Every structure is written in structure tokens, then in C-alpha cells.
């Protein structure tokens, strides 16, 4: 792991979109928790595939297909190395994090859960780690228990044991909250879940892109994330799962590429991970994700993390100087996500105003409506950072905030 600071100005030159003017203003892109921008290397890797070696993978007995197959399979291996997975067989490409969680809910949930079993979720889950379980609960008569959040937006480990009991089969928890920025102690949660005989799924959509995550250290059963939140293209996501589960789970989708042998009467499944990747997959997406991982690895996740932490610290300090502001979530040990409310200005009005200033922020419920009800607001405004954000972005944001206050005061 590199110890040096990352050179943000050098990095910014790798992202063509950052050169774009927004309504004549410099772009300050601060909606990275929603999706991230793409470096030229990722865009080129995708174009290169389509220009030079586009072909369907597996079974093509010609050079183009061999190259495409090798690149797509290598993408799985890269993801495996990036998150410290022991085997490539554990890495399934999906469309996104949501589909990865759905895969577990459908295939694992419908196989291993029975009426009366319990799933533990937290109150800070994104809809993607909530709705699939609600569906499953309705269908199979499963109970869902919610782990409440503390006033500062964190989870108290002390509350977990009483929720677990002997009926809990799964704890499904976000690694980093997309609203509060809270970093949850997933390693300890996994340990306690396992002690109680439950499996653990980690929604890593907001963690894998921002700091080094090692699935073996966390000892999680499942881990899901999206490519587009880590410089990769949209339409590619990842499910990591222990092979002991994948071997016993039935396919989620079925059709081509996921079989080894088909007769008119029955089919036998292909080896892992292909058993879970039915049909022609998003080959270009996989190749783009691999390029994104190469890009991040060259910089080093430690440097990415430290850079974001500096931005968070700086932003929190600037926000705290302001009056009439409420910041949600913990004030320390948090990821690069800051949700806030400016008194008297609805988040949507704020976001529209910011857009006029070239500042892209998000306003809304952030796909976490139950959490909004706990916070007692219909919506929040949110800024979220990535490696290409700099102090200038934060200053532009703060300046626009002050201007908005003036504007809406009239």
C-alpha cells in the first residue's frame, strides 16, 4: 500500500467530464454516493473491447472470443484480488448491487429459510437491502427484526445479541450508510452473527469504492457492491459469496452459459461462478470494472481513503461555522458522505440553486425512506466525495450554500 498522498490535480486530468462547464460554471461534482465519474482509462477499455475484440465469450473457437473470454474472466479474478477473496469462483457479476442482494434473497433465501426464521436488518438500510427481504418475508412467513440506530446515527453492538436469538438465519447490514456516512463494525457483527448461527450479508456499495475491504478478514458470507460507484460503468455489479453457499444454492436466473449439460428433460449447472451468470453477460461492463480496479489499485485504496477523510474533515469544519445547519450522522469515524439540512430551505430548492452554481449535490430520501422517518425529515441534502474532489469543490459548495441562504431570505 502506498504511503504517499494522492495527487488530486493529476487525477482530475484523467476525468474528461471534470473539464465540462455547467451553465458556464466550473463543475463541482459532489454526488459520488449516487454514481461516480469515469477516468479516460475506463472509457477507453470499454471502447477498446468493442473496437478490437468484441465477441461472445466462452465456446467461441476463434481469437476474438478467446480474447474476450480471457478479459471477462480476468475481470472476475481482479475483483477477487481487490476484495481479498480466496477464489474467483466466489465472484458473480450482476447488474448492480441491488441485483446481487436480490440474488441472495431469491436463491439463498428461498432455499434455506423457512417460516418463523428471522432476518436482522438495521434501520439505516438502503431500499435495495430492505425491499428484497420484505418480499421474501411476505412470501415465506419470515420475521424481520430491525436493529435501531442510536441518536448519533451509529449502531450499538450491545443491542445485537438480543435481536439475534436462535431463530436468526441472516444479518444483512450496510457497511457504510449512504445517508449518514456511518461506518458499521461489520467484522464484529459478522462474528456475533456466526456465533448465533446466522449468516451475514454486507451491502458494500459505499465501502468497497472508498477503502480497502477484505472479505476474508470480515469473514462475511455475502458481500455486494456496484461497479458504477467505483469509477466503473453502469450495469455491472458484484456478489461475493462463500463457495460453500454457492455450491448449495440453485441458480437465480437460468438459460444459456449457466449450464454444463442440457437434455429435453433436465439441465446440469455449470461450474462456479458461471452457474449464476445466465445468458450473455455484460462483457464490456466487466472489462470496464476491471479497468476501474486497475486505476484505483495504482493509486492505492489507503491514499483514496485518506484523501476523502481530509475532505470530510474540511467540509464538516466549514459547515459547522454556518448557522441554521443540521448535520446528520456521526461526527467522527464516518465515510465520505455528509447529509444535512439548512433551516428554512427545502433540500430540493437547495439542489436546484446549487446546480445553477455548477455544484451537483443530491436532495431527497436517498432510497432510505424508513431512515428519513426516524430522522424526522422528508428529505435531506447530501454531498459525497471521491478521489477526484478537491478543496476547491468544497469551497465552491460552501460559497453556493451561503449564496442560497441569501437568495431564499428575500
Amino acid at each position: 500500500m502506498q504511503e504517499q498522498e494522492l495527487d488530486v490535480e493529476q487525477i482530475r486530468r484523467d476525468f474528461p467530464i471534470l473539464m465540462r462547464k455547467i451553465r458556464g460554471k466550473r463543475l463541482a461534482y459532489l454526488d459520488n454516493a449516487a454514481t461516480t465519474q469515469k477516468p479516460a482509462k475506463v472509457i477507453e477499455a470499454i471502447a477498446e473491447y468493442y473496437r478490437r475484440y468484441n465477441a461472445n465469450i466462452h465456446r467461441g473457437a476463434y481469437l476474438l472470443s478467446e480474447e474476450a473470454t480471457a478479459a471477462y474472466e480476468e475481470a472476475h479474478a481482479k475483483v477477487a484480488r481487490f476484495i481479498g477473496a480466496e477464489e474467483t469462483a466466489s465472484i458473480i457479476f450482476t447488474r448492480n448491487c441491488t441485483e446481487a442482494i436480490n440474488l441472495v434473497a431469491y436463491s439463498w433465501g428461498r432455499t434455506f429459510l423457512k417460516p418463523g426464521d428471522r432476518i436482522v436488518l438495521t434501520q439505516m438500510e438502503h431500499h435495495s437491502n430492505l425491499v428484497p427481504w420484505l418480499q421474501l418475508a411476505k412470501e415465506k412467513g419470515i420475521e424481520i427484526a430491525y436493529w435501531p440506530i442510536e441518536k448519533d446515527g451509529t449502531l450499538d453492538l450491545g443491542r445485537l445479541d438480543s435481536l439475534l436469538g436462535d431463530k436468526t438465519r441472516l444479518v444483512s447490514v450496510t457497511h457504510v450508510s449512504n445517508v449518514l456516512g456511518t461506518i458499521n463494525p461489520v467484522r464484529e457483527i459478522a462474528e456475533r452473527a456466526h456465533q448465533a448461527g446466522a449468516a451475514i450479508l454486507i451491502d458494500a456499495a459505499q465501502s468497497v469504492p472508498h477503502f480497502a475491504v477484505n472479505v476474508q478478514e470480515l469473514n462475511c458470507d455475502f458481500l455486494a457492491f456496484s461497479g458504477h460507484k467505483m469509477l466503473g460503468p453502469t450495469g455491472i455489479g458484484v456478489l461475493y459469496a462463500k463457495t460453500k453457499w454457492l455450491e448449495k444454492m440453485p441458480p437465480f436466473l437460468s438459460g444459456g452459459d449457466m449450464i454444463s449439460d442440457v437434455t429435453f428433460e433436465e439441465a446440469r449447472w455449470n461450474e462456479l461462478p458461471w452457474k449464476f451468470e445466465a445468458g450473455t453477460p455484460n462483457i464490456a461492463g466487466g472489462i470496464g470494472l476491471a479497468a476501474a480496479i486497475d486505476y484505483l489499485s495504482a493509486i492505492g485504496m489507503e491514499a483514496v481513503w485518506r484523501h476523502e477523510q481530509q475532505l470530510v474533515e474540511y467540509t464538516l469544519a466549514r459547515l459547522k461555522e454556518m448557522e441554521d445547519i443540521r448535520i446528520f450522522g456521526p461526527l467522527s469515524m464516518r465515510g465520505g458522505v455528509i447529509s444535512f439540512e439548512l433551516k428554512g430551505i427545502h433540500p430540493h430548492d437547495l439542489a436546484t440553486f446549487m446546480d445553477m452554481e455548477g455544484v451537483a449535490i443530491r436532495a431527497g430520501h436517498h432510497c432510505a425512506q424508513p431512515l428519513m422517518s426516524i430522522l424526522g425529515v422528508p428529505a435531506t441534502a447530501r454531498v459525497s466525495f471521491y478521489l477526484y474532489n478537491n478543496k476547491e469543490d468544497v469551497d465552491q459548495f460552501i460559497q453556493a450554500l451561503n449564496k442560497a441562504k441569501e437568495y431564499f431570505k428575500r
Partner: protein
Amino acid sequence: MILDDLYQEIILDHYKNPRNRGKLEKPDIHEHLKNPFCGDEIDLDVRLNENKTAIEEIRFSGKGCSISQASASMLTEFLKDKPIEEARRLVELFKKMLRGETTPEEEEELGELQAFKGVSKFPVRIKCATLVWNILEQGLNEFSRQNRSSETESKKT
């Protein structure tokens, strides 16, 4: 495109000093709608006149951005005392203006509501302005449907 097109003086005034905010006792129409895009919610209460042909009073409550709140406030004033069919037509006209499809003559009819014309230049905010109008439309439709069915009920007996 400038921000003042969106945030006209009159809109901010209605946002800060909403008219007809609250609830009505025994309303003829009560409707609730949520904008899934932003989580804004509005409740609308409508009282009709005695022979149920015109709007007598409208109240609204709920949380939302300046555009949705001002739109609700201005709707309550604009449609007060309007015959139901006339109100329906004006709801359509308002939505037509936000699609940018109205003629100057048609806009004239909308009076102060023309302040919302600028919203059509901000595509993501159009839903904020039309939310309350859609709620009213939904409520009026529901009311007619129930009335029709109760008419047929009474014909049966």
C-alpha cells in the same frame, strides 16, 4: 436560464406565508399523495357547495419544497368557488402550461399562476409544481366515481 424564472417573488411569498393551510371538518374530498421522487407529501381537503357542483373551500397540509408548497397555496385561492367542471379544466390548463404547450391567451386565464411558467424550464421540478394539482384531480375523479355509484345504488332501491 435564470433562477428567478423559477423562484418568482409571488412563489416565495406563498411558500413563506401559505394561504389556506390546515384541515377541513368533514370534507367532501380528502386526498393524500406522496411524490416518490423527493418524499414530499401533501394532504388536500375540499368542501363542495350544497348541491355538490362547485368547490367551496380547499385546505392543504404536508411538507414539501417551496415550489410544491406555493403551488398548493395558490391552488386553494385560485379554485375557490369554481364549478367542478371548470376546476377540472383549469387543472388541465395548469399542467399544460408546465408542459410548455399553452398559448398566451390560455396563460392569461391562469392569472397569478403564470408565475409557475418558469418551472417548465426546470424539468426535474415540474413534478413539484403539479403534485397538488394531480392530487385534486385524483380527488375530484374519486368523488364523481363514488357519486355515480351511489346514484346507481339509489336507482336500484
